[in-house]
């Protein structure tokens, strides 16, 4: 069969690739040379993620738990059971006792229908994507300050950037295609500035690497803004024409002090000044940060946006702000309204005009009060109010950084799981609905640079599983909704009516080239390569004054090191797709061969001082807790800190407690564990 252009469904880059099939099996993958984002390149995951479709572990039939054991049942029985239970729980405890969570890997159509089902059929705004650790801070800050919660420019434009700032994201591991684009831009003359706590591969290639102390980003950006203002490098014509609240910002920035910031961040004042001058002087500078983790405070993101506005790096090619999404459709599920306080298109659910516009299309009422997010739902069942949870392709037991999700699921009256595979979460479900895989259905995803793309159907679906969006439609129909979608394309047509900036994104239009970047409207069906072109819009951007954060207190003498939790080099090893793709499983477990029990990372200087060698057992002592782990000695980690990858769940639970209070930095001391 002729190779078909489709979209990689692993990370947020959205690379274009061709799948070659033979006998209903993918036998070859290769990248599109013409695709504007990847231009003939894909990463290891792109080459192999299709293997999941042929995994022998795929679920084939709906499963219903009877007397504590799963039994294969018919679709009618499974969907009938769900319908009856949802109706009973809603009538007994009210619509807000139900919650609907999905994964940022769900398609736009699935995400749209799930939130529509929750809002219009059930009557609750308890909808959320992921497990509460994703891009909410980034969305809210960007919406507030620039009016668009997304990356402003295209990945392909990085080739035109004169300065590229990479903040806190290990591109080489997490978004390798973008990492490659950044390195190529640097080789072609761009200056590369890397800010972060880890010396990752892109940092190794940086012109300026600011290895700051954990949690000091706000201080650093404030100091950089001060340098830019002191040197007169701010773009006043841009600020006057396009921005508000500059004076308040200016007053606040004047309180920052370069030397104080240098001390607080743990990098030299010269380095901060050099980075500020390089960024401030560049005709076009791009700033990349990861939107995906909530360990970035809102103030630190505000400080980033302030810097972009100060230097006028919006509305031109090669510049802009990249709020990078690490899952393939994190941007899309947010666009589709999988947020407890926002309708599709990011309109607040509390806004009567916004509600009225959506209600007119859905022909039903939408609840007024914002719903619960996934964090309260999964950490304490919304203080016990939640009785049932629908989890679409979502695996919080494995991925949530919330302590005891499994324990919470066990206490629910109904858990519905939609997934390809029997995930750790699905084991706790009452009903499991098997879904189709990558390549078996035609749906759309939206990449990190707003590119809405078709993922084509190249395989006949395996017997049994059905598309997740169809399952939602059938349950809605069972509950009396007059939903008549015959295809995912019809769902996208309705999305075009509800989400103004998707109005031109019909399947026909998306199939013409390499998808379309939103805003893709009927008036501008070709989409938008970069936002804010031209001077239209008046003073729509807003500075936000960010007070100088207090200097971190002195490190307690008995706990001289700082424990940092985060995503490590090999964190994909626990991803359910990786675990069911033979090649990826092998590649992403390489490091685990050396550290079969996992590891925490120490800087070689600290290790030497403590007499700890690579691979030795150590014990971490915090004020009220301790945990055992294996040491991995690596210069990627900053001296003075110990890095705990999120997949080291035991360490996290023992140090932070079962509930996980969200603290990211914990003072600790380390002792070598006596050999057993």
């Amino acid at each position, binding site marked *: 069969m002729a190779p078909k252009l489709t979209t990689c469904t692993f990370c947020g880059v959205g690379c274009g690739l*061709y799948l070659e099939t033979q006998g209903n099996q993918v036998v*070859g993958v290769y990248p599109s040379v*013409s695709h504007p984002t990847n231009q003939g390149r894909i990463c290891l995951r792109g080459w192999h993620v299709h293997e999941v479709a042929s995994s022998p572990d795929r679920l084939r039939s709906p499963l219903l738990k009877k007397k504590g054991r799963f039994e294969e049942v018919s679709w009618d029985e499974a969907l009938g059971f769900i319908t009856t239970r949802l109706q009973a729980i809603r009538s007994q405890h009210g619509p807000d006792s139900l919650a609907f969570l999905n994964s940022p890997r769900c398609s736009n159509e699935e995400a749209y229908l799930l939130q529509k089902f929750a809002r219009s059929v059930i009557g609750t705004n308890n909808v959320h994507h992921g497990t509460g650790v994703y891009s909410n801070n980034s969305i809210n800050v960007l919406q507030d300050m620039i009016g668009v919660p997304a990356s402003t420019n295209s990945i392909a434009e990085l080739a035109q950037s004169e300065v590229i700032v990479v903040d806190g994201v290990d591109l080489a591991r997490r978004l390798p295609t973008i990492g490659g684009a950044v390195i190529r831009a640097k080789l072609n003359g761009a200056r590369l500035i890397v800010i972060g706590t880890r010396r990752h591969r892109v940092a190794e290639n940086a012109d300026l690497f600011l290895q700051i102390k954990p949690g000091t980003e706000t201080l650093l950006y404030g100091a950089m803004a001060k340098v830019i203002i002191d040197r007169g490098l701010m773009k006043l014509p841009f600020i006057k024409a396009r921005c508000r609240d500059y004076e308040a910002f200016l007053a606040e920035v004047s309180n920052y002090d370069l030397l104080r910031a240098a001390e607080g961040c743990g990098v030299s004042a010269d380095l901060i000044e050099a980075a500020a001058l390089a960024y401030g002087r560049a005709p076009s500078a791009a700033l990349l940060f990861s939107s995906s983790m909530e360990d970035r405070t809102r103030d630190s993101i505000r400080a980033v946006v302030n810097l972009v506005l100060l230097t006028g790096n919006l509305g031109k090619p090669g510049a802009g702000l990249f709020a990078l999404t690490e899952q393939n459709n994190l941007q899309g599920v947010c666009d589709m309204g999988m947020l407890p306080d926002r309708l599709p298109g990011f309109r607040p659910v509390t806004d009567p005009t916004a509600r009225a516009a959506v209600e007119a299309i859905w022909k039903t009422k939408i609840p007024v009060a914002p719903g619960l997010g996934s964090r309260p739902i999964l950490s304490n069942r919304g203080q016990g109010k939640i009785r049932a949870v629908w989890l679409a392709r979502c695996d919080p037991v494995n991925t949530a950084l919330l302590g005891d999700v499994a324990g919470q699921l066990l206490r629910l009256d109904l858990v519905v799981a939609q997934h390809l595979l029997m995930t750790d979460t699905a084991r706790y479900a009452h009903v499991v609905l098997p879904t189709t895989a990558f390549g078996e259905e035609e749906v759309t995803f939206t990449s990190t640079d707003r590119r809405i793309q078709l993922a084509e159907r190249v395989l006949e679906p395996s017997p049994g599983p059905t598309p997740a969006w169809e399952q939602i439609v059938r349950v809605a129909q069972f509950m009396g909704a007059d939903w008549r979608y015959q295809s995912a394309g019809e769902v996208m047509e309705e999305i075009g009516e509800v989400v103004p900036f998707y109005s031109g994104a019909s399947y026909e239009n998306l199939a013409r080239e*390499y998808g379309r970047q939103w805003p893709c409207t009927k008036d501008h069906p070709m989409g938008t390569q970069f936002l804010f072109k031209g001077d239209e819009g008046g003073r729509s951007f807003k500075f936000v004054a960010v007070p100088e954060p207090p200097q971190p207190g002195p490190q307690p003498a008995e706990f001289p090191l700082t424990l940092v939790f985060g995503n490590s080099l090999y964190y994909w090893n626990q991803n359910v797709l990786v675990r069911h793709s033979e090649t990826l499983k092998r590649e992403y477990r390489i490091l685990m061969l050396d550290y079969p029990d996992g590891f925490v990372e120490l800087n070689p200087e600290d290790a030497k001082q403590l007499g700890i060698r690579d691979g030795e057992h150590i014990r971490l002592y915090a004020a009220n807790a301790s945990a055992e782990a294996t040491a991995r000695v690596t210069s990627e980690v900053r001296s003075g800190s110990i890095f705990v990858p999120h997949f080291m769940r035991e360490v996290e639970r023992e140090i932070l407690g079962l509930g996980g209070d969200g603290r990211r930095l914990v003072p600790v001391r380390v002792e070598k564990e006596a050999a057993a």
Partner: protein
Amino acid sequence: MKARVLARTDVLKIVDLLRRQGYEVIAPFRGRGRDTFFDTVTDQNRDHVQIHLPNPYYPPKRYVFPHIERLLKVERKNGGLHIEPTYEQPRRAIFGIRSCDVAGIFHLDRFYLGRDFRDIYYENRRKNLLLVNVVCTDLEAGCRRRMFLCVRRHRTRRPRPLRFAADGSGR
């Protein structure tokens, strides 16, 4: 061997001829934008075969050395296991293959056919393979960096002896 000159309009008749002779004919096609690919010629796509295209990014190596192939058939018979090798040996022709890819197949031959161990699966596919080579008339973007693999074939066959500097280091 005699040289023949074909009219431009008759070039695709080679494809028809090969198909009539029972070959599965693989030829280059245009995808989206500058993307091109090799695919099997059928009645439906025959008129879309093109040879003046950028060389497909995904090389034709898979037609002599596929990513996935069935090597053995194992059956339970008479209380034991009956193992039988399965050879895929279609009569296959690659029409429009470039010289660099031909050189690539030549290198595979050296490894799989030219040593003590002959890969019988590879050999079976190669025996039934017919190549219709298109020789580039102009240099494609990127060829310069690839060091003209198409014309370096002979150099590979007769590697230049290493010379040693006075200090013993190779150069």
